[in-house]
């Protein structure tokens, strides 16, 4: 009897298995073409809740860029800040700004966007109790130290520098001169928020409501987000397609496989292992364009041995020992460009990028490198240990390559070694605890396409991301002057002078600019990456 039931059960299971496999096949790309066509795109699980002032990585930023529009928007091609919701931003002293917004804009739930939508959102973002990771963006606004003190509890909940004048106007008072402040307002943290954000926060988080060209149709955390074109979107940059389905991939290799199998339309992160096949696999549907990201080697200037006149020569010598073109070609398959300054090509010449500013210090020259390092008294401590986190990216490969360069230049096998740290968090821990004794990997992804953003947060004395604690009075002075300058062209020039100071002291060794790389299916066209290496979704056409 039992034998019979066993057999029956097994037979059923086999039948189910076979039936299931039979219907498992076939592609399922859905939706029509034209302006109603929906495309699918790879996505990563956002690290933080999707709030504008709380999102500091690309995956969350991708969604914010589709769902929100702020006062300004960075031109996806040129990176220039252009008015979006702002009709004018006026100032006479680079401290007090009067911002007028266009009328007729609403959130996708119908709520009108007024000056208050901005002021409330900025106050929320700055308020310490809300734990917003981008709170420091509001640090230039007067009263920030009351709302968000470095230690202790807040003594105010609103920024004293923000005042609503009427429905379409508000004023901003800064705590220092900052002439390019209006150009920072395209950053997602400055987006307006609807009242539902405050009154029904958890509902908003599970399905964010914004004012951009797309609305969120459904959101399954960690798996998928469906965005659809918002028909009543009042902006000029309406979506050219019907919507976008963002699918979370646990591995970018799988996303790439899905693209080649025809199940996915767009992958904005080509896995390193596929870079050599990607051109033939996708026959021209591969994009590799510069993004506002630079990689550098930073030094622990809090260690006295790195802060001497001799150590300066050593730093310049080390920079000369690195064969940038060879590493970017062989290790990165040309998805990096050798750096010749401390900014990024996406700024353009008018924005402050100056090719060759680093000069001979960034040109491969092993003999001169050896001479400089010798003159400087050799590597402090006798051995160069370059610290990096081993858990993500392929940092080991290029660090080893750099060490190889240095060892060859010095004719010493043990002159330079990599010093891996297990996790990114631990790596960050050691940096902020000032535990490192040698150079370490540093990367900077711009928040907004301004030369100021590549210099001030990284090299100004005690700035938020000055991890090496490099400090130079002349540099600080020039940055202050540049910020006070109301004329953009001469401000940029002053920033470049400051960059010259950084070069002469080799405050950090520039390595390469990172490109954004993407591949797409033949179902879609007009695909481009913006300077933040995020696809310009609203311009993609579906066939």
């Amino acid at each position, binding site marked *: 009897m039992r034998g019979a039931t066993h057999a029956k059960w097994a037979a059923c299971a086999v039948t189910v298995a076979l039936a299931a*496999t039979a219907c498992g096949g076939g*592609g*399922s790309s859905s939706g029509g073409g034209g302006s109603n066509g929906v495309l699918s795109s790879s996505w990563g699980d956002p690290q933080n809740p999707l709030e504008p002032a709380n999102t500091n990585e690309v995956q969350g930023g991708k969604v914010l860029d589709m769902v929100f529009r702020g006062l300004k928007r960075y031109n996806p091609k040129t990176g220039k800040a252009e008015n979006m919701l702002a009709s004018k931003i006026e100032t006479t002293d680079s401290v007090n700004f009067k911002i007028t917004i266009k009328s007729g804009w609403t959130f996708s739930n119908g709520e009108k966007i007024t000056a208050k939508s901005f002021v409330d959102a900025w106050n929320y973002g700055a308020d310490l109790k809300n*734990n917003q990771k981008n709170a420091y963006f509001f640090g230039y606004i007067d009263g920030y130290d009351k709302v968000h003190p470095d230690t202790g509890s807040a003594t105010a909940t609103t920024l004293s520098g923000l005042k609503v004048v009427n429905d379409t106007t508000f004023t901003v008072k800064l705590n220092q001169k900052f002439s390019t402040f209006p150009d920072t307002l395209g950053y997602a943290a400055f987006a307006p928020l609807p009242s539902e954000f405050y009154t029904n926060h958890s509902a908003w988080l599970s399905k964010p409501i914004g004012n951009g060209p797309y609305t969120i149709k459904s959101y*399954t955390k960690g798996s998928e987000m469906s965005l659809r074109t918002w028909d009543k979107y009042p902006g000029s940059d309406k979506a050219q397609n019907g919507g976008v389905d963002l699918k979370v991939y*646990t591995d970018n290799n799988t996303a790439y496989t899905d693209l080649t199998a025809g199940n996915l339309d767009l992958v904005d992160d080509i896995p390193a292992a596929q870079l050599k096949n990607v051109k033939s696999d996708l026959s021209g549907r591969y994009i590799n364009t510069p993004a506002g990201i630079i990689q550098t080697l930073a030094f622990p200037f809090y260690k006295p041995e790195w802060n001497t006149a001799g150590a300066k020569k050593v730093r310049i010598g080390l920079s000369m020992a690195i064969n940038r073109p060879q590493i970017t070609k062989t290790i990165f398959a040309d998805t990096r460009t050798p750096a010749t300054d401390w900014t990024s090509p996406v700024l353009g010449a008018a924005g402050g990028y100056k090719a060759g500013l680093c000069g001979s210090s960034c040109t491969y020259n092993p003999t001169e490198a050896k001479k400089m390092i010798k003159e400087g008294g050799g590597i402090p401590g006798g051995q160069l240990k370059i610290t990096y986190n081993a858990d993500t990216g392929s940092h080991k490969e290029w660090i080893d390559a750099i060490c190889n360069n240095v060892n060859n230049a010095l004719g010493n096998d043990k002159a330079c070694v990599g010093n891996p740290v297990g*996790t990114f*968090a631990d790596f960050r821990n050691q940096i902020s605890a000032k535990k490192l004794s040698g150079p370490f990997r540093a990367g900077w992804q711009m928040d907004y396409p301004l030369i100021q953003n590549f210099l001030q947060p990284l090299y100004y004395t005690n700035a938020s991301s000055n991890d090496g604690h490099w400090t130079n009075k002349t540099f600080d002075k020039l940055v202050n002057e540049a910020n006070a300058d109301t004329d953009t062209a001469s401000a940029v020039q002053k920033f470049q002078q400051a960059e010259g100071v950084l070069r002469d002291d080799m405050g950090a060794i520039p390595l390469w600019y990172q490109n954004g790389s993407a591949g797409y299916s033949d179902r879609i066209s007009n695909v481009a990456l913006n300077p933040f290496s995020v696809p310009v979704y609203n311009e993609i056409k579906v066939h």
Partner: protein
Amino acid sequence: MGRYVIRRLLQMIPVFIGATLLIFLMVNVMGDPIAGLCGDRACDPATAAQLRSQFGLDKSVWQQYLTYMGNVFTGDFGTAFNGEKVTDLMGSAFPVTIRLTVVAIVFEIIIGITFGVITGLRRGRPIDSTVLLLTLVVISVPTFVTGLLAQLFLGVNWGIIEPAVSPSAPLNQLIVPGLVLASVSLAYVTRLTRTSIAENRRADYVRTAVAKGLPKRRIIVRHLLRNSLIPVVTFIGTDIGALMGGAIVTERIFNIHGVGYQLYQGILRQNSQTVVGFVTVLVIVFLVANLIVDLLYAVLDPRIRYA
């Protein structure tokens, strides 16, 4: 029997507490997770301090552990860094992984035991050698190779399956990943069953059954297989836990958002709440699976009695 079960359940408590404590300490050793939350820049100190106190990271490890366990017993597994409740993450991840594991186990049972019985009864024959060779190949090829090849051929080149499983992970899309996940264990089940069957074929009770003139089918299923299944059931029982926790490679290849994915994500982001929560549940799965295996012994072999 009842007393035995109760005793075993009581024994689980210290194992459970010890295991969670170990995991908790291990995750804690990795350092301050808040430092990695702000990307390639330092979190501003005030926000970092606030986050630390919100996640209870400013307290001593013992205090953290006690609070955590206290919460666990009320069903609160804490909050992940992305603001989601760990119980919500479990709610989405475990059903998917359980489905995947069930598919894998079903394959193990059906294919593994069938092959095991066939080869065990025909020892030394060509079919036996063929299956032995095949299982050797399957055991020696790592899962990620099998997985990637299956994905490339079945998914991309021939278009029989979807290369990536959709978020809802319906059963039909899990057939191939399940088979890949099961492959190595399947080979072991085959070999275990084969040896066991071959050994018991010469046992007295089988000879008696044959002498009684029972039909061959009945001898094999009722007498031979039932007794030979004890080591196999032990293996499959412990394999349930191993498959659920170890599915990470298969889950990554086929983009399945299950337990392995959440654990990987949790470890990468040093999210102790997620890691400890998921491992805690996995520990329970292991313990319960072991208990069930032990109870099954008595069903399979009436000579085994529990007191």
